[in-house]
C-alpha cells in the first residue's frame, strides 16, 4: 500500500517518502541522535503552523501518558485554551512552541521530549539516571553516554524494581550537580547496563549549551 502510493509520487517528493518508510523498519529513536548538535534556526526551520485542536488533543494525551505529569501541571505549562505552534524543521524534526517558547519536540513519530529548559522547571516529568563527574564534559560535547559513566561509583541507575527499559526518554543528572545536564533515550535497559558495563547506554538528545538550548524564542 505504502509502496504503491510511493511510486505515484513525483520525483521531488521521493526522498521524503523514503524517509517516512524508514520509520516503519527502524525504531525512530535510533535516528534522532544529535539532532541539536548542529541546528541553525535560519536554515533548518521550514515553517510554522498552528496545530489543529484535534491534533493538539492527541499530543496532550500522548504527553500525559508518557511523561510523569498530572493534568493540572500540564495545564500550567500549556493551557488548553492556548494553541501550540508546530515549528517544522529539517529531517522530520518538530518543535512545539507556545508564545515562541519551545516546550517540547519530536522526531518522526517518536516520543515527545521536553526541552531542557522546560525540564529544569519540572524535573519530575522524566525518570533520571546519573552520570559520574568524569562523563559530564563528554556529554556537554554532544557524546552519547557509555555504560561506565552510569555504572561507576559516581553514576547512578534506578534499582531493579524501578528498572527502565530501552527506548525510555531519561534525564541525565550529574554527580555533584543539582540540575540535569541533558536528556536522552535509553539504548539498553538499566538492568542490562549493570551487566554489560560497556558500549552506548543512552543516546544524547539535547544537552546544556546545544543549539536547542540556545533558542529561547522562536
Amino acid at each position, binding site marked *: 500500500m505504502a509502496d504503491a502510493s510511493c511510486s505515484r509520487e513525483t520525483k521531488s517528493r521521493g526522498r521524503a517518502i523514503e524517509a517516512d518508510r524508514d520509520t516503519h523498519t527502524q525504531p525512530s529513536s535510533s535516528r534522532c541522535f544529535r539532532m541539536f548538535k548542529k541546528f541553525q534556526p535560519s536554515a533548518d526551520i521550514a515553517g510554522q503552523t498552528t496545530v489543529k485542536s484535534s491534533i493538539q488533543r492527541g499530543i496532550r494525551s500522548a504527553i500525559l501518558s508518557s511523561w510523569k505529569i*498530572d*493534568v*493540572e*501541571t500540564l*495545564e*500550567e505549562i500549556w493551557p488548553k485554551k492556548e494553541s501550540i505552534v508546530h515549528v517544522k524543521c529539517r529531517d522530520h524534526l518538530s518543535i512545539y512552541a507556545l508564545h515562541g517558547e519551545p516546550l517540547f519536540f519530536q522526531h518522526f513519530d517518536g516520543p515527545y521530549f521536553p526541552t531542557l*529548559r522546560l525540564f*529544569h*522547571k*519540572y*524535573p*519530575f516529568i522524566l525518570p533520571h539516571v546519573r552520570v*559520574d*563527574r*568524569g562523563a*559530564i*564534559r563528554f556529554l*556537554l560535547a554532544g557524546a552519547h553516554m557509555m555504560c561506565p559513566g552510569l555504572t*561507576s*561509583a*559516581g553514576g547512578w541507575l534506578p534499582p531493579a524494581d524501578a528498572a527502565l527499559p530501552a527506548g525510555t526518554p531519561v534525564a541525565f543528572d550529574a*554527580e*555533584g*550537580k*543539582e*540540575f540535569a*545536564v541533558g536528556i536522552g533515550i535509553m539504548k539498553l535497559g538499566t538492568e542490562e547496563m549493570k551487566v554489560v558495563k560497556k558500549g552506548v547506554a543512552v543516546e544524547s538528545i539535547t544537552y*546544556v*549549551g546545544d543549539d536547542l*538550548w*540556545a533558542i529561547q524564542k522562536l
Partner: protein
Amino acid sequence: MATPATTADATPSQPEKQAIPPVQMFYCGVCTFPPEYCEFGDSLSKCKEWLQAQHPDLYDKYYSDVALKAKLGTISQEAQSKLEEDTAKKEAKAEAKADAARKKKLASQVIIKRIERNKRKYITSVRGLEAFGVDLKKAAKLFAQRFATGGSVTKNAAGIDEIVVQGDVSQEIYDMIVEANDGKGGKKGLDVLKDVLVDNIEMVEEKRKKDE
C-alpha cells in the same frame, strides 16, 4: 497563580489537585548554563567574575573551598586536573578568537564615497560596514528611509557588497554613524550602526570623469 474558579468549586471531601509549581531556574548571565556547569564552558573566569558581582551568595555556594572540594565526588585528582587544564585551554582559545575579532575590527575601514555622476548629480557608496557586524540590507533600508531616496546593496566590480544611496548624503551618513555611537545607541532606529568605529571611517570623493 492558582485558578480561582476551581478553588471555589473544591469540596472538602475532594481535595483540589494543584499544579506543581515550576522550579525557579537561574542561569549564568555570561554563558547561559546553570552556574554549576560554568566550569565546563569556555568562559569560566568571566562567569565567576559576573556571579561574584551579581550574586555573591551563589558565588560562595559554587566556588567556596568547601564547595570546590565537595564537587570533586568520585573523580580522581588526575581527571580533575585534566578537566581544569582543558577548561583553561578552552578559555584561552575563546579569548584568542575574541581578540582576533577585535583586532580585525580595529583594522577594518569604512569608506564613504561621494561619486559624481552627472553635473551636480551624486551617489554615495558605503563600503566595509559588514566588518562591524552591520546587516547591510538593514542599513541600506535605513539610509533610504532617512533620506527618502533609493538605497540598495550591490556587488561592486571586485565582488564585494556595498551600499549605494542616491544623492550626496556622505556627510549625513557619517553623522548618523557618529550619532549611533553616541551614548546609548538605538535611538531613532540607528541600532544597526552602533558597533561601527567612527575613527575608522574614511571620506572619499570621486570626481566625474572628463569623457562622461
